[in-house]
């Protein structure tokens, strides 16, 4: 097991190395206007000592852009391994500090949505499987498919129109209400929660479909298994068959897939956060990316790649933990 894990981890590191190399090449090849814009701004600033061309040289040197692709990449990699991702050009603080400031908003939002998703999707999936080809089953299938087909921005805009513009219950975007600073601690918490309602709802609506379908398929598989037939044959009540024998076995793949998505909770919802102006990692990176902030973009891409790889690793480990049959092999 340990050998297997070590192998997987080493493989992941290798993949990460190449992913980051490709990303670095892309970022390097873009004739980044940001360096030039920054240089021009710096040159125009009162008391500027250097011309724009000198500033470009200076900035390129500072960000390792002048060493050629390979050397530049290894410079970046060396710094990154030491946890030094440089200063964000757009946010004007160091990448890691900005990350620390914003990551918990992302996590909170993703976690709320994740919990809601499980609470809604798993029971519905099990019920749909239990009553296959019934009205409920069809509704669940259709709702899941519709949810998968809705673009995030459409859901977000619809929610904004209904809850913010028409009903006026929630703020249209942002994380703090207008009177946030005058509120008590509890009031601040409630205010924060209120601002999470629409983003979380959006996330739940668009990502509930796959989980629902997955639960349904797996439950059906389990319900067709021999041991369920045995349980029924020995006269157990249907409720017990489902909740004890079937559901526990359904959990095996479910826990695996849910566990695998745990690292993703830190990844932030790029689109949703941007649409609702939740200052999480997604929102922060979106603005860094569209403003040509190379250091922060590199940091974010590295971070999300690590999360994907961590998710895969997690799935492998959990599979072994949950299903003893895997461990034997």
């Amino acid at each position, binding site marked *: 097991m340990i050998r297997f894990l070590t192998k997987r981890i080493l493989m992941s590191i290798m993949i990460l190395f190449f*992913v980051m190399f*490709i990303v670095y090449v892309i970022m390097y090849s873009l004739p980044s206007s940001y360096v030039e814009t920054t240089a021009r701004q710096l040159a125009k600033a009162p008391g500027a000592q250097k011309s724009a061309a000198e500033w470009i040289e200076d900035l390129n040197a500072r960000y390792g852009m002048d060493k050629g692709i390979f050397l530049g990449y290894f410079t970046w990699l060396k710094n990154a391994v030491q946890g030094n991702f440089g200063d964000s050009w757009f946010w004007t603080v160091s990448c890691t500090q900005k990350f620390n400031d914003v990551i918990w908003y992302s996590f909170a939002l993703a976690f709320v949505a994740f919990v809601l998703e499980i609470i809604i999707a798993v029971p519905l999936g099990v019920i749909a499987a239990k009553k*296959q080809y019934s009205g409920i089953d069809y509704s669940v299938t259709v709702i899941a*498919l519709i949810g998968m087909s809705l673009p995030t*921005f459409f859901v977000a805009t619809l929610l904004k129109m209904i809850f913010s513009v028409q009903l006026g219950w929630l703020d249209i975007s942002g994380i703090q209400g207008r009177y946030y600073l005058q509120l008590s601690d509890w009031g601040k918490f409630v205010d924060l929660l209120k601002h999470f309602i629409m983003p979380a709802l959006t996330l739940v609506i668009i990502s509930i479909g796959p989980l629902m379908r997955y639960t349904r398929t797996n439950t059906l598989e389990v319900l*067709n298994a021999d041991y369920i037939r045995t349980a029924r044959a020995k006269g157990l009540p249907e409720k017990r068959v489902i909740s004890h024998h079937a559901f526990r076995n359904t959990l095996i793949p479910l826990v695996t897939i849910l566990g695998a998505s745990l690292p993703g909770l830190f990844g932030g919802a790029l689109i949703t956060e941007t649409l609702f102006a939740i200052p999480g990692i997604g929102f922060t990176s979106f603005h860094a990316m569209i403003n040509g902030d190379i250091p922060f*973009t590199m940091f974010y891409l590295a971070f999300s790649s690590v999360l994907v790889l961590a998710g895969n690793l997690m799935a492998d480990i959990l599979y072994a933990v949950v299903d003893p049959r895997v461990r034997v092999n």
Partner: protein
Amino acid sequence: MTKNFNEVLRAMEEKERRVKDAETAEDYVMELSDTQRIKVLSPGRLVAKRFFRNKLAILGSVILIIMFIFSFFIPLLYPYGQTEIFYKYDSLVVNYAQANERTDYQSYVVDENIDVHFTIRNRMTSYITEMETTGLKDLPVSGSDGSSYIIRKLGESVYSLDSGAEIEVAHFSGMTEVSSYNTRIKAFLHVSPVGEEFEASFLSAIESNAESFEADGEKYNVVSVAKNAYSALQLSTGKMIFPGTDPGSGFTDAFLEGIETNSFEYNDISYKISYDEDGYRITFSGEASTVLVFSLFVFDAFESGSSIREDYKPLALLSMYTDGEFELDGDSFSVEKRDDGYVVLRGESPVASLSTFVVRRYTGGDTLSMDFKKATEKAILEAEESGQKTAVFSFPLPRMDMDGNFLVDEKGELTAVDTEITATFKVGTWELTCEQITHLIDIYAPPSREHIFGTDADGFDILARMMYGGRVSLMVGFVVVILEVILGVIMGGIAGYFAGWVDTVIMRLVDVFYCIPTYPILIILGAFFDGVKMGSYMRLIWMMVVMGILGWAPVARLVRGQILSLREQEFMTAAESTGISSRRKIFRHLIPNVMPQLIVSATMGLGSVIIMESTLSFLGLGVKHPLATWGTMINSITSSNENLIRYAYIWIPVGLLICLTVIAFNFVGDGLRDAFDPKMKQ
């Protein structure tokens, strides 16, 4: 006994024909062992049969067919294009005219030959103000170059600037002082000896404040030299100095004769005498010639639109306060005072009216009719009297139809309709506004028969843009998915077939591509395209290429997995034993067997590509204006909260189009999967 191959074939054909004849015959009875009793469907038809049994799949197919017709065929019949701008004629409150009381004097040139020095011109307004406040009729002024002029008030609001009023002809000076007298100590101080008569005449001249006196046949001039001190100068000792030409002998005598009256005549020309410290100035007081006329009056032509000749304006102004008659180029004109102001007539017909109240088109042009001006003046005067800042009056203005054309009656004359005109006083000017039909871009038109969904912020027809947006979305979806499938099949096929190190390399590459986050890369590229200002079509192509490159990994993994299991099967062993090439084995025997899964995953992938494209477009990083896409259409509406509700009838249908298309692809994909592999459906 062996038959040759041809005979065998012929026998078989014969048998088949007999069976066929028997089948078609009426009295044919099928036997239990007959193979024809079992209807065998080809695999393709089996799949189709299963597919069409699925209601959701049918629904999805129908939606997709409608969507294709909507996006690709209806635009061919639909009259509008995606970038066709629509205009409308709408009644709009426009600034029609402006009116104000003239307060600044305008100059009219009378004599072009005389250049008035700029210092005079510049100070003209203040001179006139000075004359108005002091009530002076004439004001002599001189410019910094020494030229002197007289400003004369001809009448209310009309002033003339006359030049040449006083031109110095000669200067008389150098007279010797004969005696002086101090009135305080009452004593003479004689420079040269004088008689009794002189003293008496001198004293009487001082007492009577006369300028000169005569004594002993000599003329003397009395000059006040200091306080209480006068001196007597002997005139005959003075010398006449001519700056110009000498008018002739006898001029000095004539001057001496006229010194008492301050004027004299010589050769029928009258001269003026004035005294200054150096002596006498003799100036020519000939005909003053008027150079400029300044007036508050403006000329309004009686016939609207006709221009007034510039050259008769000053003549009219000059004559308006006298007999009012003047001639120009053989035409005789007259200025007549009427109740509502002065009118210039050519012969009997009125040409222009003079008033200090100006009504002009907002653009400055004098194209308004006289009646309109009178009506405006009346309304505004009434408002001013009652102290109001707004005046409303109605006036028949030329009528326009809804297309903005002027309406004419049978005679070809413009018809008029009473229009309500509002005059508002703003910063010294009355602004006249009225509702007029104007030609403008038809933005945010509500749904109508011409534009079923109305128009957008650019005046584009929304229904047309919905269709073209669908075209872009579907095209992007298909191109990207086809690219993904081609790349994925090639890479996956090679990996699965060759196994070994090729497989390892390709699969690690797949892992790498799995790991590259798609959205961030596309967002970065979108921002980059914005930065280099790439054209709409180029960035559309680039976006599709990048999406295809980023999306091939899952396809490759699928193909590889399938091929790994297929190549162990018997038919592959059979294919191998025939000794065909690897390429044929992969692409003729293996890939076709992967097709079902490929088709399913491609159909499902189409939906997600469309979502991705519209999301990017919504964020402004995908397909750009003027190309229509569903994402941009929604984005352009939802930028403000107010529009979110007001134009919900635009963006919700567009959003539903996206959803419907994606749902349809998902339904069809789901249906296809169930149809291809019924075991998977549970």
